[in-house]
């Protein structure tokens, strides 16, 4: 077999002479790939984006014996088609950057499905190893897999692992050693298109012979053509002589079903390889996952469970996070401000004000939200890691349909309760572009922890013992508004289009603690980076507006802006101070309180809460809380929306939409509430 021979030559190992070798980690989602990446690289890793794409790129390095191993974590994909940017990135990295070795992670519990990616990787002519992960999960579901038999069948090394317990790492490193020393045997058996289409494949092979660019294996290119791969189609169309191309195009048109024949061929290859290696559970034996799912995916029971889990998550987040936040505020920020004043004693007054009010006040306020956000991320990450979040998406699917979305959009929206920035970035899990745009636009309607904190602070000032009820009412209302806006936008702009809902429900399993901590660390770090850059800049801008021209807030540019837009504020019953507080919430939502603190704090002998409750009627308070909940997204979220949509048009549309909705709803609330005599 021709291809087999070529492959053999490339990896006919004289050993790796260079000091550094590049290894790419490939695998489908939910295979524990990230855990393996984290086990190998530890903290020595870098998270960024693939060039020009909004797809996360993780790479790291570790020393092993005398070698530096550069590890690239390829995006998790089910296949290597050209249907998503992740898949194109993964395959082009392997084909064009040519790593020394590809390690494919598969799950012993979903062996057939997870080997599908291997059936695509194995034809790429790069040395390949398979990590057989999640042996424990397989046993929990009643499966056993023999790695040696699998290795003999496929013809590449198969290394058993339980990454979540860090078991099997040494075995993997031993194989790296053998690979470096050139002692490994590769004799891969390759999958073929199913028999009924073999002749078509041969025809295409002949027609493209001699024209395929060097980095594409010929066998692979013809498979991709038959699969209807748009990228390879365009490339070959541009390099082939016209008459040859027309012949190919004709064949492709006649065999549109060839894609299915290729997938079938790959699964036939998989079935042959696993037949002897896998022991299946006895019929009628019900695994842990199915037992839990009887409740978790039940249309009513599942919703109740979801509500309980969400409630617990919020309770945990705020009952642990809020005291830490208050502690940071009083024990770190306030002393830091005092310290800065002492240090800067000889500096001009405006420098002191810039550092204390602008930088420490603005950025500090955001940083104190870190505990709340970390706890929320941890809870969310845990639910995701054990496999529950896919069930939440499943039971929410019906509700999401009203907005033309499906269950997957629920996950980023839920993340929005912590912070809207990761919510907007989290929309990357949604395959269809219109559904993703719509989810991004709706994400800022989810009240984030900063806005929840503003509500929690203000509600007692106006509603005393009813504050709890009012707060919950406000939060529920903003979710109802989210749904109404979603339904309308879907009808008008997205023409009620429905996108396909196809989602894996992973097996329940216990996650690796170290890996989970690392993920929380990364998410927190990226949040801090935002706080460090955008929010710092915005803090300084807002500070400057409140300081100049005269050094007095009441005559500052900010007050002038407040007075200028005061007529709009009046619709909602807001005076210029509340209007200014609202405007500064654009920098960071909790600034609404900070600004009121500045505006009232200097003179009053009462606390801020008492002053506010004496100054404003409950109707004004209610309108202010409503408009704060729905107001334009904070600067960091706006930046995230711009980054993810890549378009100022959508970003501005989002701002205008939220401005209109917030002012409209708050005006209505004020009119009704004051009629009712509040």
């Amino acid at each position: 077999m021709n291809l087999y021979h070529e492959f053999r030559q490339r990896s006919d190992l004289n050993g790796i002479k260079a000091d550094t070798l590049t290894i790419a980690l490939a695998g489908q989602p939910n295979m524990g790939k990230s855990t393996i990446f984290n086990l190998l690289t530890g903290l020595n890793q870098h998270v960024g984006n693939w060039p020009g794409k909004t797809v996360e790129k993780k790479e790291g390095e570790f020393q092993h014996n005398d070698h530096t191993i550069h590890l690239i974590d390829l995006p998790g994909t089910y296949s290597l088609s050209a249907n998503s940017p992740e898949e194109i990135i993964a395959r082009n990295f392997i084909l064009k950057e040519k790593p020394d070795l590809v390690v494919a992670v598969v799950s012993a519990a979903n062996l057939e499905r997870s080997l599908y990616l291997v059936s695509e990787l194995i034809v790429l002519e790069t040395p390949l190893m398979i990590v057989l992960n999640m042996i424990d999960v397989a046993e929990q579901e009643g499966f056993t897999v023999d790695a040696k038999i699998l290795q003999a069948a496929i013809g590449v090394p198969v290394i058993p692992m339980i990454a979540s317990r860090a078991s099997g790492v040494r075995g993997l490193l031993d194989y790296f050693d053998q690979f470096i020393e050139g002692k490994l045997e590769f004799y891969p058996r390759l999958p073929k298109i199913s028999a009924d289409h073999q002749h078509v494949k041969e025809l295409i092979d002949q027609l493209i012979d001699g024209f395929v660019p060097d980095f594409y294996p010929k066998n692979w290119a013809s498979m991709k053509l038959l699969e209807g791969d748009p990228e390879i189609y365009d490339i070959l169309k541009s390099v082939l002589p016209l008459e040859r191309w027309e012949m190919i195009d004709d064949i492709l048109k006649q065999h549109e079903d060839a894609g299915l024949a290729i997938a079938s061929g790959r699964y036939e290859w998989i079935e042959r390889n696993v037949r002897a290696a896998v022991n299946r559970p006895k019929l009628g034996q019900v695994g842990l996952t199915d037992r839990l799912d009887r409740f978790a995916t039940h249309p009513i029971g599942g919703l109740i469970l979801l509500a309980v889990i969400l409630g617990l998550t919020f309770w945990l987040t705020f009952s642990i996070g809020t005291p830490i936040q208050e502690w940071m505020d009083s024990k770190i920020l306030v002393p830091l401000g005092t310290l800065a004043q002492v240090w800067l004693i000889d500096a001009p007054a405006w420098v002191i004000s810039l550092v204390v009010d602008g930088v420490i006040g603005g950025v500090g306020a955001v940083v104190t939200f870190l505990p709340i956000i970390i706890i929320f991320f941890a809870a969310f990450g845990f639910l995701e890691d054990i496999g529950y979040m896919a069930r939440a998406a499943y039971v929410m699917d019906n509700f999401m349909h009203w907005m033309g979305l499906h269950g997957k959009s629920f996950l980023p929206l839920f993340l929005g309760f912590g912070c809207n920035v990761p919510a907007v970035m989290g929309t990357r899990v949604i395959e269809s572009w219109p559904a993703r745009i719509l989810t991004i636009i709706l994400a800022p309607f989810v009240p984030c922890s900063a806005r929840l904190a503003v509500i929690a602070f203000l509600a007692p000032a106006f509603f005393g013992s009813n504050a709890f009820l009012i707060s919950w009412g406000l939060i529920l209302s903003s979710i109802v508004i989210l749904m109404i806006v979603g339904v309308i936008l879907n009808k008008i702009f997205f023409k009620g289009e429905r996108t396909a809902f196809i989602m894996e429900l992973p097996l329940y399993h216990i996650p690796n603690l170290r890996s989970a901590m690392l993920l929380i660390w990364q998410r927190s770090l990226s949040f801090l980076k935002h706080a460090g850059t955008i929010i710092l800049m915005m803090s300084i801008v807002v500070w400057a507006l409140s300081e100049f021209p005269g050094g007095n807030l009441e005559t500052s540019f900010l007050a002038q802006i407040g007075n200028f837009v005061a007529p709009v504020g009046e619709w909602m019953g807001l005076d210029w101070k509340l209007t200014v507080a609202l405007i500064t919430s654009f920098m960071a939502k909790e600034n609404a309180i900070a600004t009121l603190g500045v505006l009232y704090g200097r003179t009053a002998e009462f606390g801020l809460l008492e002053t506010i409750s004496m100054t404003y009627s409950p109707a004004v308070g209610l309108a202010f809380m409503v408009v704060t909940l729905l107001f334009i997204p904070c600067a960091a979220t706006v930046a995230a929306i711009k980054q993810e949509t890549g378009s100022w048009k959508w970003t501005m549309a989002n701002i205008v939409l939220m401005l209109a909705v917030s002012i409209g709803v708050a005006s209505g609330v004020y009119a009704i509430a004051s009629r009712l005599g509040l």
Partner: protein
Amino acid sequence: MQSLPVIPLADLKSGESATISALKAGRNINARLSTLGFTPGVMIYMTHNYGHGPIVVTVRDTRIALGRGEAQTILVTREKE
């Protein structure tokens, strides 16, 4: 053997098994489904079907949630009891 009737996957009840006979969605959805293991001839098990809303099936040991619309485009023949 007389040929068994071909029905949409969505018509299977919870706990029933069937064999996939054809995928009738568009090319892209077919590709995504076949990647996940929905290929003609494979056994499929209806894990949850509550008569409305999305369903859960088990195919090649993997549980997959499908919208009812998608489940209409997958044609199956029921396993004989």
